[in-house]
């Protein structure tokens, strides 16, 4: 009865002395469509017509979209070559780990690729790794964006352990991501004529301009006991190290492609491309695959049949559902809102329980 008492009692007082107070101000709620919950509203109901037309429209839009995407994907020419198995000399085939870990063995390996169709420039070169967890929490976190960005934050390596520092000071770029930089290299030639590989502009512009500093130079990199992957030219600033940038954009899934470079000339159909691969990168210890991919692109990107097929399936499903509903309505027709279906007509004041 405390404060509530005070409030309601003043209300009660108003009641008894309403003669005087009602003139002053009535406590009648003010009318507005909002307070009376009568705002103009659209109240969609799923009538058969609406259901069928919705499904049909989705179907009609989706199937052409799927076909267009599929054809775009079909236009893309893609060459995929797995080389991790075949680039191991036969005498090491039982102990690939030994092969890859022995620095004194020559790792080069020659593969020949046949161009199935005309590949218009630019042809993108990717390497594809399999079963490689770039999205592992330990791995993803093991980097320092600050350090990459400016030379003054060189020492902020707290997340980079164990690749954070050497006796000579902090490692730049620190962390497992940079440390495990991919170091296979490819040299292409057609009819023993070397094809130029453009390794510029394979990284995102924002990476070059904002994430990786132009005054940050690699330091103490790969100088520890265990060498992870590629070494960096310590006279080139990070903002020019595009391979590193590509690698540092960690992949989402354990199977991923990364841009290696671009071939800026058309590759004719049935041309034989010779690729000299320096097979340095160790994927054998975790039985990951390595693939070399050459691909053109269309407006949809690379060769991606999935999207087109998915569109067609969803569109088809919608059309199928539309047909189903039409059939259902025909087989089991019920005039809309037939009063005999209304439950209050069935049981006038019934207790349903």
């Amino acid at each position, binding site marked *: 009865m405390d404060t509530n008492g005070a409030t309601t009692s003043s209300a009660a007082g108003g009641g008894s002395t309403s003669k005087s107070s009602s003139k002053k101000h009535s406590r009648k709620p003010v009318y507005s469509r909002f307070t009376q919950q009568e705002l103009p509203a*659209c109240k969609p109901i799923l009538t058969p017509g609406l259901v069928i037309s919705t499904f049909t429209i989705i179907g009609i839009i989706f199937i052409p979209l799927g076909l267009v995407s599929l054809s775009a994907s079909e236009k893309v020419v893609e060459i995929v070559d797995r080389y991790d198995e075949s680039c191991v000399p036969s005498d090491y085939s039982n102990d690939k780990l030994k092969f890859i870990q022995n620095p004194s063995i020559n790792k080069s390996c020659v593969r020949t690729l046949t161009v199935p169709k005309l590949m218009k420039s630019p042809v993108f070169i990717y390497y594809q790794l399999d079963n490689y967890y770039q999205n592992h929490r*330990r791995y993803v976190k093991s980097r320092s964006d600050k350090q990459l960005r400016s030379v003054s934050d060189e020492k902020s390596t707290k997340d980079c352990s164990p690749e954070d520092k050497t006796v000579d000071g902090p490692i730049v770029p620190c962390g497992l991501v940079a440390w495990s930089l991919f170091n296979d290299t490819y040299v292409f030639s057609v009819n023993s004529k070397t094809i130029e590989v453009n390794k510029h502009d394979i990284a995102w512009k924002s990476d070059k301009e904002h994430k990786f500093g132009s005054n940050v130079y690699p330091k103490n990199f790969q100088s520890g006991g265990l060498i992870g992957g590629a070494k960096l030219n310590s006279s080139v600033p990070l903002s020019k190290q595009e391979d590193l940038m590509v690698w540092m954009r960690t992949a989402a*899934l354990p199977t991923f492609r990364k841009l290696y470079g671009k071939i800026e000339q058309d590759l004719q159909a049935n041309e034989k491309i010779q690729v000299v691969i320096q097979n340095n990168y160790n994927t054998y210890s975790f039985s990951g695959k390595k693939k070399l991919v050459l691909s053109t692109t269309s407006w949809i*990107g690379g060769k991606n049949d999935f999207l087109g097929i998915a569109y067609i399936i969803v569109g088809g499903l919608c059309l199928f559902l539309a047909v189903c509903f039409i059939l259902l309505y025909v087989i089991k027709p019920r005039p809309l809102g037939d*009063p005999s279906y209304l439950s*209050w007509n069935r049981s006038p004041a019934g207790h349903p329980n």
Partner: protein
Amino acid sequence: MARIRKRSIQLSKLCSFACCRSSSQDEHAQIGQKGYSRVVYCNEPDSQEQIRLRYRGNYVSTTKYTAVNFIPKSLFEQFRRVANIYFLVVACVSFSPLAPYSAPSIILPLVVVIGATMAKEGVEDWRRNLQDIEANNRKVEVYDKSSCSFRQTKWKDLRVGDLVKVCKDEYFPADLLLLSSSYEDVVCYVETMNLDGETNLKLKHALNVTSFYSSAESLKEFRAVIKCEDPNEHLYSFIGTLYFDCQQYSLSPQQILLRDSKLKNTEYIFGVVIFTGHDTKVMQNATDPPSKRTKIERRMDRIIYVLFSTLILVSFIGSLFFGIETNNDLSGGNYTRWYLRPDKTTVFFDPRRPAVAAFLHCLTGLMLYGYLIPISLYVSIEICKVLQSIFINQDQAMYDEEMDRPAHARTSNLNEELGQVHTILSDKTGTLTCNSMEFVKCSIAGTLYGRGMTEVEIALARKRGEQLTEQAPIDASESKKSIKGFNFRDERIMDGKWVSEPQSDVIQKFFRVLATCHTAVPEVMGPDEIMYEAESPDEAAFVIAAREVGFEFFARNQTSIKLRELDPTSGIRVDRVYELLHVLEFSSARKRMSVIVKNPENQLLLLAKGADSVIFERLSKEGRAYEERTKEHIEKYSEAGLRTMAVAYRELDNDEYKTWEQEFLKAKTSVSADRDVLMDELACQIERDLILLGATAVEDKLQKGVPGCIDKLARAGIGIWVLTGDKRGTAINIGYACSLLRHGMKQIVITLELPEILAQEKEGDKEAIAEASLNSIKLQILKAKSQVTEESSTEFGLIIDGKSLTYAMDKNLVNSFMDLAMRCATVICCRSSPKQKAVITRLVKSVTGRTTLAIGDGANDVGMLQEADIGVGISGVEGMQAVMASDFAIAQFRFLERLLLVHGHWCYRRISMMICYFFYKNITFGFTLFWFEAYTSFSGQPAYNDWYMSCYNVFFTSLPVIALGVFDQDVSARLCLKHPLLYQEGVRNILFNWPRILGWMFNGLLSSIIIYFLTTNSITGPAFRKDGQVADYSVLGVTMYTCVVWTVNCQMALSINYFTWIQHLFIWGSIAFWYIFLVVYGSIPPTLSTTAYKVLVEACAPSILYWLTTLLVVIAALLPLLSYRAFQIRFRPMEHDRIQIQRRRPESTEYDATQRRLSESSEARTSSELPSEFKHRCLKKSANIGIASAGLGV
């Protein structure tokens, strides 16, 4: 000065010792002992003695928090919720390396959510604080001894012992002892509405000894000591003694003025402060409204437990796989995933101790999948409920013009429970009926007076199928002026014609009793206008009736009552003064009141009125002349739904009176605990050998629209119980009148008024009676049950009286009784006491396990209101006590229809949809994280940027849900009322049953699967743009998150029934906000935005694939729900679907349906109660016809 004071105190102490000895023993035993130890030194608040006692000041604080304890206390309140504790623990652990995301991103949402709730608490408390400040700073005049005058002081500065002056229409600042007033006979009138809600005036009377102190001058010398009880919450009792002038005087509640009551009709009073601040009775009475939880909330807790288990299960699975993967990192001495440096790792990823790593990872998992539990659920629900209550308060259709009172949701947490009411337990008087009593009939000396039909009689006649003569309305129009409380028409008595009736002396006595035996106070408004302030409307009706007949009661003081009455012999009106000796007050136990007066002829008379049963057993042998006929008439009256009262008197013998009075006075002044019992006994002694005069019949008018409302509620499938103190006949008739009992309904009556029981009662063996009664009730219940089972198609109404009920509540019988009661559409419990009401409510609640709603208006309903799941108070004439104990307050019973069928239905629907949807959206989101985990070897890396995630519940998905919870309507208010059966959705809880909840959860799971797999397969792998770039971790995160935001909001759009601009704004706004957020967040430096840096602008937006994927995924994720809904609406429509579909049909068919339905139930209705909708339509139609024919004519 000081010395004088000191001496006087010592003197008074001495006095008190001396005096006490002479006083009665029990009083002495009580005062000064435990519980009776308060001492007040009147007019000496700053004396050493008073200060030493350290009584509290008059400062009052009703706030829950203070500035100091607000933060800790409200935080504590917040963390009493399990979910919040979980989030707090998560926030604490987030600083450790275990956390999958950064600490601020976890803490911020928690801070927002907790902060919002705390802000709400704070605002509420601040409002209370403002009220306190207002109350504490009110001004009162306090006596200043040094200047011998009164000066203005703030309430809060008042001290115990202060002398105060309170003027007319002011509130008393503390509990005061009345010393003197502006009246010579030291009385004052007090309105206690704030305390007990009673609007009538109460008379307070000071002790005669203090009446001398009626001026500021005289007060200077006033010294006294009060010893009294300690602070307690009993409003109507006070035990104390005044030690004054070497005498002691016992104090009773008559001399106490309570804080927050108001001085009326009195210029000013002087009083001494006895209790201050929180010691006052009103503050001692302060209780928080009982906190009730709704069924939905309780089930929601269970869902949260389910989600917690899911969370633990998912984390366990995750850590199991993680353990295996981590273990595999070290195979045969070689480190497999060398790029993770397992050789130089932390304990969290150590392949040499995979079990430890897995265990720790489980903690990470608990944090990562924490999104399964919606952090903002509680706060969103609270916001929704508050807004819903505002809508309830703002509803014009529930505003009562007459009282100027809108509906008021006093607690907001029961809104959805309004939509699930299974049984309504209703009080009758004041709830179904107006409690505005009209004197309609009387029986005097065995003759019936008064004609005209009551509404109940009309209903009864209709029930019997009699043709009504058009007599009643003519009758009503006959009288030019209608007097409130008086509807008596009989030319034999009116206008002084009673004089010529055969038994005019009895008539005279009869109305004299009515005019004197009461506690009403006259208020002279004008020369010929007198208003009466009475304790009950019955009483006012009697006084008014007496006045109209010619016995005008026009003045009263402490010792006399003045009547202006017609002298039968001379025919002129004379003033007669009755000396009022004693008032034996009415109580529900006594069921009677009487006064002892000395009339101008010096006769001692005891005038009594009371319940027939009580009066009849106290009649003298010679007083039973009219007993038979009066009984007959009373029977007839109660059949007509009237409240009856028997009237009797007795002439007292002078000696008898003298001896009785002595004892009575002694009892009255005693302070012992059994004082009341003693007084009752003495009253009994004198109230005997009465002579019956006749009986009165007062009509308790039905409230507006009650029958229609009850009919609607019954058709909504809500069981209605009426718990009333009335007689069976009255109750049954009221039942018919308000269509509780309907045509074609079979009555089952369970009673103990059977010949065999009555015979046993005469023998008087209590045990035998009890046993026989129990057996009889058992038999009756079994018989009724078999009857109900046999005739399952007919509706039954059960009528049981209070006495039978006590036996039916026996623990062996209660289950079968409740079983029977549940099968009846209506249950009427007559002759039930307030306590029984509460017990019944509890039983109905516990036996059925369904939601009960109790509705009542008086103090006697408080127990019932608090016991029920929902208490609805009617803010009617009986004051505010019921309202104070209620959860919802409405002004009229008929508003219950709208409150339940419209607001209840909506709120139930909104809250249940909202909760389901909440779980849906969080499961969708949480499981995309889980699927992603499966592809990161369960390392605990979230799929999204930290801040996307923390904003999920707070920004991207919360507003549409709140809009759903506040605004959604499946059907409009009009249709809700038109189709009451829609309400069964709530009663049967079909919108929040486990299949539905699990269905939504399954839908969430499905959505997450669709989103994850379609997105990853579409966008990752080959290049996703023309420039050959591939989608990395950040692009996948953004794409997937975009799909989640779109899907979740579009699902909302699909499940909303009511699209106003608000919904559009919130839904599409939330989606748009996600893009805006991405742009803004992506443009801050990469060290802060990390993976989100320019991800939309640079990477995603230019990619057609990104947009195509969004479209595909969203449509695909919506398909399951869409096709399910399409199928369900068509082939298994729910009630609201049917109505929605029907709404779409052309007008004419809808009209047909309405008409058909109306013709079915037309018997039970009068034409005036036709729904306005129908009338409107009829009018419109006839207007159309009119236009058409006019057209033809031209």
